[in-house]
């Protein structure tokens, strides 16, 4: 069988995977990029604006998505998952499962006629279910590719989308496909999950509609978000008093998450600044243990927020309950300046949830996770993108919590390591030309 051959396979189409793919393809390597969801862009494309520059997030992400999609050296596999990996002397042999979209990607133009025609409303995953979409839809306005996907689990099989489609792209008979490819090296850029909103019983176990997580607030703040403004999901009230609970899911032994998630301080501060921009009269309070604004320009950002009037209270939130008006009562321990336990009421509470590993890399990639569940870095200081399997490298939050800036830098590092590995392999192959006997490789 003839296989598609690539220099590198990048697993994950979030910001790290895209950056690694671009950094490899721009060096002239052939790259396959596999993304399991319908569009590349990862979690970053769901964000509103990014710290500390307050650039609109899509201004940073969408051009990279576009560059990946149009790059001659990159083959994109969206809505696809790696099924199996085998290794021989030629490198890695990879089976990729292309999930059925039930829409032909060679025909679909992303016109959304099917979406308008579809009668079934379903919770929109892009808006973390705060808004609705249809059972057949283009995932979001800036999705790459702009190809619709049909959610077969919620399909009526009414045929309305088929009738509406001007190019006959709907194909309800589509079946999963397996693609085989060969790659010299693999970069894992598989990202993270956020702490589940129901992780902590003390914080309402996910049952209080006005206790949301940081990612939901990103959607509320995004111009394309569910309400187009900040309203509380419980009843649509414009909040006047908003609380942030820091370390909700990080540095918490009861959840088995002992590490710091690195981004929550900054995203809470950023959101607070954005909210005070759109709701100037709202009071915003951030309850924290330590403020960790350690990146370039971050401390200055924090001090700006303090100057703008965001209230920072050092105190541990012990519990959150809801009153009859859907307002939330926070019980605070060891509050700043006051030894007693205090209660405070807010309209809306944002849990600054942390980052969790996505999956166990051992099963599929034979790459070991560390105790924290993220991909282990056997040489953490000098070669942070190395994994314990030769030829497989790691980029971004697959190797633990980090922010976008650090992810992008690490994606570059993974690309450099992968490039070095590809060159070593090439050198070895070149040295094995028939006339000369197999030689010892001195630099490798």
């Amino acid at each position: 069988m003839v296989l598609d051959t690539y220099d590198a396979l990048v697993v994950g189409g979030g910001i790290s995977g895209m950056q690694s793919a671009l950094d490899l393809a721009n060096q002239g390597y052939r790259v396959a990029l596999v993304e399991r969801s319908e569009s590349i862009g990862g979690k970053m494309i769901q964000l509103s604006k990014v710290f500390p520059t307050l650039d609109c997030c899509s201004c940073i992400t969408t051009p990279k998505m576009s560059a990946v999609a149009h790059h001659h050296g990159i083959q994109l596999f969206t809505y696809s998952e790696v099924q199996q990996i085998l290794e021989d002397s030629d490198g890695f042999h990879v089976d990729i499962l292309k999930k059925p979209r039930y829409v032909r990607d060679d025909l679909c133009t992303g016109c959304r006629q099917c979406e308008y025609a579809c009668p079934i409303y379903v919770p929109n995953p892009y808006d973390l279910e705060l808004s609705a979409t249809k059972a057949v839809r283009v995932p979001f306005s800036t999705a790459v590719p702009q190809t619709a996907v049909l959610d077969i689990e919620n399909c009526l099989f009414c045929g309305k989308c088929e009738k509406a489609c001007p190019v006959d792209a709907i194909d309800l008979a589509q079946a999963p496909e397996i693609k085989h490819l060969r790659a010299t090296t693999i970069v894992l850029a598989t990202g993270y999950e956020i702490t589940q909103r129901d992780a902590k019983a003390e914080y309402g176990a996910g049952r209080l509609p006005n206790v949301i997580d940081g990612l939901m607030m990103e959607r509320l703040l995004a111009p394309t978000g569910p309400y187009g403004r900040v309203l509380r999901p419980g009843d649509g009230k414009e909040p006047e008093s908003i609380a942030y609970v820091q370390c909700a899911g990080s540095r918490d032994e009861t959840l088995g998450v002992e590490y710091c998630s690195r981004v929550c301080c900054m995203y809470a501060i950023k959101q607070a600044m954005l909210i005070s921009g759109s709701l100037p009269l709202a009071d915003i309070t951030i309850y924290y243990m330590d403020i960790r604004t350690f990146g370039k320009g971050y401390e200055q950002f924090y001090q700006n927020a303090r100057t703008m009037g965001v209230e920072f209270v050092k105190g541990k939130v012990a519990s959150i309950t809801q009153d009859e008006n859907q307002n939330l009562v926070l019980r605070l321990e060891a509050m700043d300046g006051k030894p007693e336990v205090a209660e405070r009421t807010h309209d809306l509470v944002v849990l600054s949830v942390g980052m969790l590993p996505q999956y166990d890399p051992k099963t599929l990639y034979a790459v070991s996770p560390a105790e924290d569940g993220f991909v282990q870095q056997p040489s953490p200081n000098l070669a942070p993108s190395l994994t314990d399997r030769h030829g497989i490298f790691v980029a971004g939050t697959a190797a633990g919590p980090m922010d976008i800036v650090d992810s992008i830098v690490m994606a570059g590092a993974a690309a450099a390591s992968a490039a070095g590995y590809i060159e070593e392999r090439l050198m070895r192959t070149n040295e094995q030309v028939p006339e000369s006997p197999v030689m010892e490789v001195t630099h490798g």
Partner: protein
Amino acid sequence: MDDGSAPRAVDENQQADADNDCKLVARTLARLPNVVVSRTNMSMCSDSGQSIIEQDIKELGVNRVVIGACAPSLHEATFRQTVERAGLNRYYYHHVGLREQDSWVHGHDRILATEKAIRLMAAGIAKARLLEPLEAIRLPAEKHALVIGGGVAGLKAALAIARRDMRVTLIEKTPFLGGRMAQLERIFPSGEHARTVLGGLIHEVADHPRITIHVGTQLTSISGYVGDFKIQLTKQSRGVTPEQAEQLMDCCSQYVPDEFNYGLTQRKVIYRPYDGCYPSLPAVDWEHYDGSPITCGSERIVLKNDPETLDLSAGAVVVATGFNPYEPAAGEYGYGVIPEVITLPQLIRKLALLEAGASLEINGHPVRDIVMLHCVGSRQIEGVHEPQPDGQVNDYCSRVCCTATMYECIELKERFPEINLFDVHEDIRTYGRGHEEFYRQTLEDGTVMLRYQGENPPVVEALPSGDSHPLVVRLRDRLTWGEEVEVPADLVVLAVGMMPRLVNDLVEMLKISPGKDRFLLEVHPKLRPVETSVSGVVLAGTAQGPMSIQESAAAAEAAAAKVACLLSQGRVELEPFVARVNPELCEGTGACVEVCAYENAISLRTIRQNGSEKRHAVVSPANCSGCGNCVSACPHGAIDVQGWTLKQFDAMVDGLAIDMFDVLEVEK
């Protein structure tokens, strides 16, 4: 189809953050001559936004595109590619920065901000009418990089570039490789020994066939451009030969404070910083050597520095010049005045110099109580902290000091279990992978945590002799709800932050910029995180900002990836913004040649035309910088900078001056 005789412009006006009324801008611009279509879009730079542009080009015959959006430094290149994909020349695109220079800065006056947007766009459209198709200048690139700095970032960058099949010249100002990392002992999070890990890296670099190392070497001049920088290096003499080195070092009797131990010890002016250093051959410290002869047996030897000049060309430059620990001012928390106040780097050296099993003493007294004080030289607040002599206040966080302090607390407790530790901080920022573990361990070890508010920093004072302790630290502790706390101490350790190494000469030569914090500035933290404003000059490690070893190594590899992207194809593309002579108008006055500061950029040639000889100016694009000195000098208006012509500028001024009542729709 467009016949090319009637240029058209399309305006794509992105609502970046707008208070501006983008739609009004778009409707107004649609009325300008040649404008075929004028749109607003939330994210023109997204793939779907870009397809709208492609579609307009293909379906409406649009042949000039103007977009008003974020700064051109961010997305001009993106949109040039878009129009190119649709079949237009990439220079038929013009970008107007409306976000940073309008909507973000005129929030208080929406009407005037809108007017400004209209005028700026009208100017852009005016320029677009006069745009010409241009071709990028393609030049061969040296697959060779110069790496400046022999610390961990420079070493990692050099190795990663060399592995990518390119040559590297690595230069280090001091006579030895290793940088700041060599001064550390055990490093977090792995607990490995710093110099062991570093030694492995140095030997990989030193053994690599494509890497040339020059120690004691600095950049003295640079010219040229990405792909072909002409570089001059100056290399100090080693001062000693392998045959005489050991003997000379033995005989040498001039001592200076040893910077390797942050002045805690002395060393000779012929020295090795540490055992196992690279190169292993000792070197003469020319800065401190007083020139007097060294008596060795019957011989009296005067050491001579005969610096050597090296010339080379390289396609790219990696700046990995590293950091200095913050040096507290005399009297800052007692430093330099009270001998029992030392910095964290000094503590690390002090513990390294102390024999195993020996007890910890300072100034001849046993140490019982230690205060670790965070954020010295970091997170400074104007008006609270004394500015540095140049007026600088370090308002940034230095990232590594919290974890480094926790790590030292653990070592202190391990080696001297009877010592009491007090950790005085504003926040504990053990953010890194595995770092929280060290915080927890410190707490378990019984270290007492005290927390102050940034505006109200602690005070360190000497106690009168005869007191139980030489010092006391006073603070208002937030953990006990604002109680005034006094901690008597035998030793106060200042966790000093990071400062960029001052490399003003280098910054000036390379034409790169430092940021407000004086660390070197990247173009954009997310879009171009390791690039500087000068194409081909990239940043690696702590020259750019505080970083841990891990972060420096990652940044260095990212810099290497960028170098590989630039050079691995063996050629670079430069913008075609160079001078161009109109032979019809040129009278051969030579005024242009006179004002040009670039060698061989413009010259006069004699040509035969219609039987008579004529002199006229000829530009060599590879040597032209596009400054335009010649443009203003030409008495006949025969020269222009391609893509930036005087006519285009005149048209833009006209665009800015349009009469608003002519173009605005009248509200009924």
